């Protein structure tokens, strides 16, 4: 039989048994689309998180009070609260450790910020001028904090662009204006550009004040965390160990802080999210297998209905192998078309989703469409094989009389 005739014969039966073909295409198409869309979502989420964190350079560490915050271990059984990290300790770290190039202490809270008759509840971040360098934040207007003393509490503040627009509206003059944060007064010395850094916090609607002032407003001695920039030369592991040793010494031998390198954080995120994508892909592949079972049922019914056709083809001179080829090809062609439609559907869904969620790049990992199409065709083949084998095993006349 000529290949082209073989293809035409299969296509013809797909076209002329419309309902059955539609069911197969639907099952395979939805299965393939599910695999591609779900893995694209998983991978998009992974990439989103990675992008959000990647602003942190390789030479940045965070020092957090308490042990093992990121590994999610249980708090110490003794119930003793972790000791605070203080401003003095931050100062000493920078002074004593050559490995530490710069330190930005952070205190975080929220408070009402008011200007004349306008007020707004915003994020208040206490830190020093170092923060802008370490986090590579830039200014749209004005200048950074200039005080060299980490304990400085001069009455200055930096605000985000959203906050500026909310408080000052169209008014051009912002620099030098007086704000009130709870009962602390300060004047605006600069405006942060853009959204600021991410890490879940949007600095465009926040106010940045000297860390000592923030401690007073929120009445706390402890710091939320230290952001440390490492001096070049030493490895991250070595520096981490040195910082941990120093902090332990400050805390009378108690190792009660955690030093996190964003690099480690990133790679564990990457791992977790990668596994998640794979898991989602597996789940979706199961749905594709379910689609395969559906195809098998349809194949069973159709081969059952067409057993007489198999008998006839044999009576007209087709061998068992030839008949099997015809029916398997038909199944592969329908799986293939179904898979192609599924990919198209996935593409449409992803384009629509990208419009709804502009922040997310929804691109499936390369293996997803390949695996999906592969499984679809394999399922089509395997599940068509059984009924075809059964029907072709009959003597031609038996098959012919079944119809």
């Amino acid at each position, binding site marked *: *039989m*000529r290949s082209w*005739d073989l293809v035409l*014969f299969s296509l*013809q*039966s797909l076209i*002329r*048994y419309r309902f059955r073909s539609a069911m197969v295409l639907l099952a395979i198409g939805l299965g393939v689309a599910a695999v591609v869309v779900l893995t694209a979502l998983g991978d998009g989420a992974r990439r989103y998180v990675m992008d959000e964190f990647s602003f942190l350079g390789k030479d940045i560490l965070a020092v957090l009070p308490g042990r093992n915050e990121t590994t999610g271990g249980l708090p110490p059984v003794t119930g003793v609260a972790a000791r605070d990290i203080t401003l003095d300790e931050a100062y000493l770290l920078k002074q004593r450790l050559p490995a530490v190039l710069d330190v930005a202490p952070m205190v975080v809270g929220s408070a009402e910020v008011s200007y004349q008759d306008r007020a707004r509840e915003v994020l208040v971040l206490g830190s020093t001028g170092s923060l802008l360098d370490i986090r590579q934040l830039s200014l749209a207007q004005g200048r950074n904090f200039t005080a060299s003393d980490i304990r400085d509490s001069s009455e200055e503040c930096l605000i985000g662009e959203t906050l500026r627009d909310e408080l000052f509206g169209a008014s051009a003059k912002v620099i030098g204006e007086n704000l009130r944060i709870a009962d602390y007064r300060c004047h605006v010395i600069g405006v942060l550009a853009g959204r600021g850094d991410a890490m879940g916090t949007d600095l465009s609607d926040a106010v940045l004040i000297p860390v000592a002032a923030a401690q007073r407003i929120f009445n706390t001695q402890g710091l939320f965390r230290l952001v440390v920039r490492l001096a070049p030369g030493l490895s991250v592991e070595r520096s981490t160990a040195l910082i941990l040793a120093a902090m332990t010494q400050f805390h009378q031998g108690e190792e009660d802080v955690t030093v996190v390198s964003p690099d480690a954080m990133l790679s564990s995120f990457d791992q977790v999210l990668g596994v998640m994508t794979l898991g989602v892909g597996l789940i979706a592949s199961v749905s594709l297998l379910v689609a395969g079972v559906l195809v098998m049922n349809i194949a069973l019914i159709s081969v059952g209905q067409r057993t*007489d*056709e198999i008998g*006839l*083809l*044999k*009576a*007209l*001179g*087709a*061998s*068992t*192998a*030839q008949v099997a080829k015809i029916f398997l090809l038909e199944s592969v062609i329908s799986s293939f078309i179904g898979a192609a439609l599924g990919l198209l559907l996935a593409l449409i869904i992803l384009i629509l989703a990208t419009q709804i969620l502009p922040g997310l790049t929804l691109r499936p990992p390369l293996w997803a469409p390949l695996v999906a199409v592969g499984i679809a065709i394999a399922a089509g083949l395997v599940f068509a094989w059984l009924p075809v084998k059964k029907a072709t095993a009959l*003597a*031609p*006349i*038996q098959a*012919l009389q079944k*119809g």
Partner: protein
Amino acid sequence: MIELDKVCKTFYLGDQSVHALDSVSLHINQGEYISVMGPSGSGKSTLLNMLGLLDQIDSGRYCLDTVDTTTLSEPERAATRSEKIGFVFQAYHLIPRLSARENIELPMMLVGVPPKERRHLAEQAMTRLGIADRADHLPRQLSGGQRQRVALARAIVRRPKLLLADEPTGNLDSRSGAEVIDLIEELNSEGITLLVVTHDPQLGSRAHRKITMVDGRIASDSSGE
């Protein structure tokens, strides 16, 4: 051309066995016209199916053109069906989704005859059988007589040596039945070997050689007369 030697075929239904062919021996020459008659269940269809290689015999020997068919592999049996044997069934057995022309082209398509040649041969067969104007009709759009002519065209389009017809007029009114028989006899007069199973004694008596079957055996064979 055909040599059957003590051919047996037994069917088992549960614990009952039916000797559909009970040690049948038969010699048929090229170009013979044979009618097979006999009561229902006497093994007429089984005989034709065995001759047409549509099923396998249990024991005995069946030689077609001096080839012992029991030694053939499945693909070889298929090839023999394709090259030497045409079959016409009572129930037509046309593929419902294919047009008359496509049904007729099917045996040629299976062996890879190029489309142009296929089409030409199908046209020829249809013209000869008087259904050229029905080429693009689906089977359900055709009358019984027309369907059987499509089936006949399909059976002869590969120019087989042997034409087996199992009650070809069983579903037809007497007029279209007679027309189909006329066509078949015309083919025989051109040299094709013809076996027709029929219930109609009048049709049966038109054959040159009349075989009667009873209980899986040949009860009478007019060639011996």
